[in-house]
């Protein structure tokens, strides 16, 4: 518990200008949806706000079914379906300075993936440094139950769509550039997506990944 609170506190310190707000029906005001609010909401309701739960929505596009479209501003991931619909999932995205936009593809997939923090994360984060040689897959692993590895021109981008051991964090700008989902959602996505699927990442004002 202390470790969880310490982690939330660290995230609050590192938090950027917040991108999501939640409506407080008691005060009738919109309040910033920060890690503390998110953790409290999840504790009270046992789930994320309804907008971030998996649902089928209208989605007018010429992109092929099976294409993944990520709206980093609104914290949604769309999986394009037939008949101008998509399955919409809630996501967490990169915090300030770690967001990106671009067109990539799913290079490979893994169940209960091993997590090896990149060198720059090892250098800046003592928690990550403990796992410099890799952390085995499992419920405490930050990549969660599944990972979809994002590639560009056959090369690993270092970015992934993955699960999380912090399910309350959906809807936040919180990651180092990866797209995080609740484990149930990432398992659902994993089962529907094939390697080679196109992934379009939209995020206002973010750095463009190579090639675009």
């Amino acid at each position, binding site marked *: 518990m202390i470790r969880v609170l310490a982690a939330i506190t660290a995230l609050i310190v590192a938090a950027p200008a917040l*991108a999501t707000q939640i409506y407080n029906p008691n005060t009738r005001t919109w309040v*910033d949806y920060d890690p503390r609010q998110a953790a409290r909401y999840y504790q009270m309701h046992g789930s994320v706000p309804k907008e971030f739960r998996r649902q089928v929505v209208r989605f007018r596009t010429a992109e092929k079914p099976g294409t993944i479209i990520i709206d980093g501003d609104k914290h949604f991931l769309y999986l394009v379906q037939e008949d101008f619909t998509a399955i919409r999932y809630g996501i967490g995205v990169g915090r300030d300075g770690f967001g990106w936009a671009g067109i990539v593809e799913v290079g490979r997939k893994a169940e209960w993936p091993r997590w090896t923090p990149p060198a720059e994360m090892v250098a800046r984060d003592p928690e990550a440094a403990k796992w410099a040689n890799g952390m085995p897959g499992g419920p405490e692993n930050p990549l969660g139950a599944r990972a979809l590895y994002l590639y560009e021109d056959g090369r690993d981008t270092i970015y992934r769509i993955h699960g999380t051991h912090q399910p309350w964090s959906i809807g936040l700008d919180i990651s180092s550039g990866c797209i995080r989902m609740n484990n149930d959602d990432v398992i659902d996505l994993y089962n529907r997506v094939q390697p080679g699927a196109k992934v379009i990442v939209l995020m206002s004002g973010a750095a463009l990944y190579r090639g675009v």
Partner: protein
Amino acid sequence: MRIAVIAAAAALLAACQGQQAAAPPTATVRATTATAPADLQLICASKAAEQYNVSSEQTLPTGSSVLGGGQYEVQLTLAGAPARCVIDDNAEISTLALVG
């Protein structure tokens, strides 16, 4: 006494009307910055790639905003060249042009 009762009833009625005016929104969360729906942004990108003969792999929305009246402005990059698109809720594009 009668005046007091009438005043109290009027205050109660006003309070009820005030609550109606401040009805809670249907959404429980929102983004702090309003942007165009993702599907409309991509419709702009697709049309721009076609119109300017640029690969769709090099065409991407880079930002968007709400103009009001059901219209949105979408900023695009077309192989590095900036462009602007105005699209409405019905996916009708009224403006599509290179910038600069």
